[in-house]
């Protein structure tokens, strides 16, 4: 987009954008506050929460300290149970392994259960290049995939879409969607159920991630709500799981800690509807486990930053983050949004890009994320440490400092809004990447000031499948970049 000056869009477009923004803001606020309340209630039910949290933290630290030993043990156990273990140094290697495994089955279609690891490595796109089509089966992922956009929340990836948009999407993109489809959530879920049922029953190959792997037994664990996970994990003949090496737990007993920490922190439930556990090749299936490094070992080498590898992707830190609530998940330019994204992404990818260097600044250091984190990751400390490492232009530091100052005192916020003009002089006109969301203190725009997609690609992210139709209403923003 560089060199293109789009200028002021016509009024209708502007208005549409405003609606879009307020919808997003409303959805995000509603989502984060609802889940926050539910989490607090179910966490409050357990009077040993602090002890569980400490156990979660120390089990993960112990595992990371002895990761080599436990990975070898896991490999042994999975192999003994009839599974095949593969190792992938980086995204490209993991994608190659999976593509080859799928090709060996002779299939050209796979079903997928939501997995952050496969999103991180851009597996769907890599498979598409090999002529293999991957179908996401998580309802939110399906919405994201049909709309050709990107997830915006770990737990509720399509939180930026409202029901009317979802209905439109289904009618336009989902083969066989009933013509009289309403925008009732129940009707939309039913349409997805029918659409995917056929796929599940026909699929020969499934690809999953895993929440946990048990070294002692070789067991993999997947937590979910909808049942699409169970479908993918049990019906197809071949199952391929791509899992980050840090997802390991030493013993079966360790799971008793995480099965309490994760559902309560994540969806705010005592337990999520379905959890599947399997060991090696199960009930006649063929099973492949791809162990993924892709930057994790360099995170592990950082004394302060390595604690990010304790993360169990519960998304509690997103839901309490004042920055996330206003900026939205897309602004972080990664599959890992929110506070955890701000410390994990720059460490995984290295801080070569402007975006990744700026991520550690996307925080007011209020500490709410640390407080809710079920494995006690001290996100603010890691942020401060990363800031020291990220060589960042002075102006941006000043800009973030100003933004941080605004956020630290909510009363000041109102004032700053009133004196928006004056604040704007303190804040540089345009911050790069995600921080552009910060620059307009008066309107607090939720998203970067250019199409998220263009920006993502410009920043070196993997391009998704090209949209069949332009991502209208997707995140259309004027681009003013010169």
């Amino acid at each position, binding site marked *: 987009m560089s060199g293109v000056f789009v200028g002021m869009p016509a009024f209708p477009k502007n208005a549409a954008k405003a609606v879009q923004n307020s919808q997003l803001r409303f959805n995000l606020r509603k989502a984060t506050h609802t889940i926050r309340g539910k989490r607090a209630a179910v966490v409050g039910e357990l009077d040993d929460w602090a002890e569980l949290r400490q156990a979660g933290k*120390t089990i993960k630290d*112990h595992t990371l300290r002895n990761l080599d030993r436990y990975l070898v043990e896991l490999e042994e156990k999975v192999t003994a149970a009839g599974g095949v273990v593969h*190792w992938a140094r980086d995204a490209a290697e993991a994608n190659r392994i999976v593509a080859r495994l799928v090709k060996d089955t002779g299939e050209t279609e796979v079903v997928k259960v939501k997995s952050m690891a496969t999103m991180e490595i851009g597996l769907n796109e890599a498979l598409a290049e090999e002529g293999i089509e991957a179908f996401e089966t998580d309802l939110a992922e399906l919405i994201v995939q049909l709309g050709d956009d990107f997830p915006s929340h770990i737990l509720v990836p399509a939180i930026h879409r409202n029901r009317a948009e979802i209905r439109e999407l289904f009618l336009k993109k989902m083969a066989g969607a009933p013509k009289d489809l309403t925008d009732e959530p129940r009707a939309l879920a039913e349409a997805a159920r029918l659409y995917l049922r056929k796929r599940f029953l026909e699929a020969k190959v499934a690809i999953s991630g895993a929440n946990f792997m048990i070294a002692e037994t070789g067991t993999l664990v997947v937590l979910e709500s909808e049942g699409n996970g169970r479908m993918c994990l049990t019906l197809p003949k071949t199952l391929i799981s791509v899992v980050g*090496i840090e997802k390991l737990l030493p013993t079966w*007993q360790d799971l*008793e800690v995480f099965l309490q920490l994760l559902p309560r922190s994540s969806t705010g439930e005592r*337990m999520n*509807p379905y959890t599947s556990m399997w060991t090696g090749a199960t009930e006649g299936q063929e099973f492949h486990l791809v162990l993924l490094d892709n930057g994790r070992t*360099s995170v592990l080498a950082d004394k302060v930053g390595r604690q990010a590898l304790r993360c169990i992707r519960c998304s509690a830190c997103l839901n309490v983050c004042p920055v996330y609530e206003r900026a939205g998940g897309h602004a972080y330019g990664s599959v890992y949004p929110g506070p955890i994204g701000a410390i994990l992404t720059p460490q995984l990818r290295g801080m070569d890009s402007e975006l990744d260097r700026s991520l550690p600044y996307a925080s007011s250091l209020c500490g709410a994320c640390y407080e809710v984190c079920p494995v006690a990751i001290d996100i603010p400390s890691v942020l401060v440490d990363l800031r020291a490492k990220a060589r960042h232009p002075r102006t941006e530091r000043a800009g973030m400092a100003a933004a941080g100052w605004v956020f630290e005192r909510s009363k000041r916020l109102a004032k700053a809004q009133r004196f928006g003009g004056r604040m704007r002089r303190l804040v540089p006109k345009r911050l790069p990447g995600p921080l552009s969301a910060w620059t307009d203190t008066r309107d607090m725009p939720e998203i970067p000031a250019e199409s998220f997609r263009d920006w993502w690609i410009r920043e070196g992210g993997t391009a998704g499948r090209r949209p069949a139709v332009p991502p209208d209403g997707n995140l259309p923003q004027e681009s003013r970049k010169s």
Partner: protein
Amino acid sequence: MSGAAREVILRRIRSAVEGAPEAEIVRGYRGATGEPGDVELFAERVRDYKAIVHVVPRAEVASTLARITEGRVLAVPAGFPSDMYAPSEGEPDGVVSTCAVAIAETGTIVLDAGPGQGTRAQTLIPDYHLCVVRDDQIVPNVPDAIARLDATRPLTWISGPSATSDIELNRVEGVHGPRTLEVVIAIG
């Protein structure tokens, strides 16, 4: 190829953690109690997930199943007690099963593919799942369940019917799994 990657990753890990202090695991939380679980609490917690729950004396399980499944034809996995349910003729529109363990505190039922539980898919595809839980299978909490279960069996932990909140955070019961979960708890 994979062999080289394996060595590289293990080497990277070893050099990354070199010199780091050993990290001890601290377990100050409530562990397994070994005690029986509270039937009433279990029933209440399962109901919280919008499942239908019946608590009946063991001798009345068969008559309860007959009553609540009237008009339905349920698939019966191998090993399900034949004196509890006799399927009628026709195309099944649901499934009946036993379970391995149930957790009072979380309202969770765990299937381990043992007798009367079928394969993982058999309790997944039908739109209706009826599960019979014996009171002696109910344990107080998650650590108790972990202690009782064999990790190497295929396990399915079920807490209420399938659900999604993906559309504007409205909870919709039943997406891909059974949309109705009915639980009969046999006591005494």
